[in-house]
């Protein structure tokens, strides 16, 4: 497989784009743009849109960073650019 710097950078950008898509969806999507529509559902006593804006998006952010860190670590090893 292609282990060049360019291929690595392309893989990194793809990963970043994927995580950013989730990031955008949970906060700007569920928390703001579709909040009104989601409020007709409820979760744990919260209207769902309100929950995303004041609770849910933050839980997702935390998970996202750890998932990203793990996947980036894998990419680094796969392309043999990891430290030591």
């Amino acid at each position: 497989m292609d282990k060049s710097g360019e291929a690595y950078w392309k893989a990194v950008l793809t990963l970043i784009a994927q995580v950013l898509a989730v990031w955008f969806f949970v906060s700007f999507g569920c928390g703001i743009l579709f909040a009104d529509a989601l409020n007709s559902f409820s979760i744990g006593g919260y209207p769902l849109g309100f929950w995303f804006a004041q609770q849910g998006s933050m839980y997702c952010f935390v998970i996202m960073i750890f998932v990203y860190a793990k996947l980036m670590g894998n990419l680094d090893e796969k392309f043999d650019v990891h430290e030591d």
Partner: protein
Amino acid sequence: MTLQTMTYLVVGATFALYIGIAIWARAGSTSEFYVAGGGVHPVMNGMATGADWMSAASFISMAGLISNMGYGGGLFLMGWTGGYVLLAMLLAPYLRKFGKFTVPQFIGDRFYSKAASCVAVMCLLAASLTYIIGQMTGVGVAFSRFLGVSNSTGVFIGMGIVFMYAVFGGMKGITYTQVAQYCVLILAYTIPAIFISMTLTGNPLPQLGLGGDFVGTDMTLLGKLDQVVTDLGFPQYTTMTRISTLNMFVYTMSLMIGTAGLPHVIMRFFTVPKVKDARMSAGWALVFIAILYTTAPAVAAMARLNLHASVNSAVKKDFATDELRNAAMFATESSIRYDERPAWMKRWETTGLLKFEDKNGDGRIQYYNDKNTPAGAEAAGWKGSELKVNQDIMVLANPEIAKLPNWVIALVAAGGLAAALSTAAGLLLAISSAISHDLFKNIFMPDMSEKNELLTGKIAMACSIVVAGYLGLNPPDFAAGTVAIAFGLAASSIFPALMMGIFNKKMNKEGAMAGMLAGLGVTMLYVFAHKGIFFIKGTDFLGVFGGKPNFFLGIEPNAFGAIGALVNFFVAYVVSKITPECPEHIQHMVENVRTPRGAKAVDGTHAH
């Protein structure tokens, strides 16, 4: 023991703890484990970053603002946490690989120009100074309440203490002191929240309690709150948007990218041992920040309910029908008598941050939305809302309103001060290193002695405190609002420059500088038009733009940073296309920054 004595005792004890740890860690620094690489665990580092990051805006001010803004307040929550995702993915690992210590250094090297570094210092100063104004506002609120003085005196005392704290700077650099500060801060925030959540919903976890049922009824807490506020003429809590969906979107974006552009936060990631750690540190920092941030909306909603309940005895009662409830809410005897008001109101009246004016002369307190007077209020002869509560006092007053024990109230005081002081000190250090090192030493006076460099830094700190304190007396907004403006300035100037420096290897110095100046310029113009030139009262010039506030698509000045960032990206792109291309060796350097391997260990003993 009186509340006053208790407060002195708890605040004094926490300060003794910080100083004690500082001395212990310094003594230990000669010992082997410290010299052996200092390997601070990423979890500890995350806590320390949390303490650095969570300021008076997060601790003292934010929940009060959410309590007033309802659903719309979510923009602070999403904005100030979502930025960490950007920081972890887009900036932290690459800046770490680059191996510089400050933002102006990175900009100066990447854009091969001292002028670019100068522009970065300017942007950094604009954002950091505005940020400190917000801290001063918060410190003023805290001190005025705990010393029982006016708000202005509180700001002056705060200036003195911040100055001593920052100049005593040794405490700042030590991770374990900050870990202690984080612990004090988070306990102070969550303990009252747990108490209140237990009382109102029977659920000890505020994050779940906020969704829980209101004790003694089959209504949810949020449902009850919605009912109470709409009865009193306020917009519905769970659906009230901040001005418009577009404004809320832009505001959230501005805070997110501002987070990833603030110098004192970024600096923390320069010194982690490895690139891998830079990614993880951001994650751990966010874990510890999220503990406070997911508690804040519960504090906000519950404080709002308790505030209404403490002036209107019908609020917490359960009624069979809407008619009965409405009749009770507006019944004369439901509003409490002013001379029987709770002790916390008297205490806050001293500070001038809570005011009562008996508009209908009945000796009772009516608190409602008089811009949308409910029918019942009119019929009951209410002549306007009689209580003015500064939103910044909500968190500090919250345990008093909920009648919690004195030690909890004292602990909240200590937490608020820890939050404000640790952040103010971090920002002042960023300012002093930018001026003394990045500006004077590197550009104007390369042969300056180390002693003079240190002196310049201290003078810069003192000036910043005086300027920020003066502006903090008449702040442009509530503490969190002012801090939001600071984020906007960072978002419009520093974040795009860093992004393009890493992700666009062809970006040249002309483009980057033009972008930063345009982004910062347009944001400042919009903010100053609303809030006065350099936030000085009476110098606002909205008239030039037709006199209508939020004239650009209805976006408020606090949210304008995201628009400024767009301008920055656009101008930088256009200018870079019509000016000489970025030199070959810089492009190679950028390519090198993109891979983790070969990151040099950055030793912690840099020049300042």
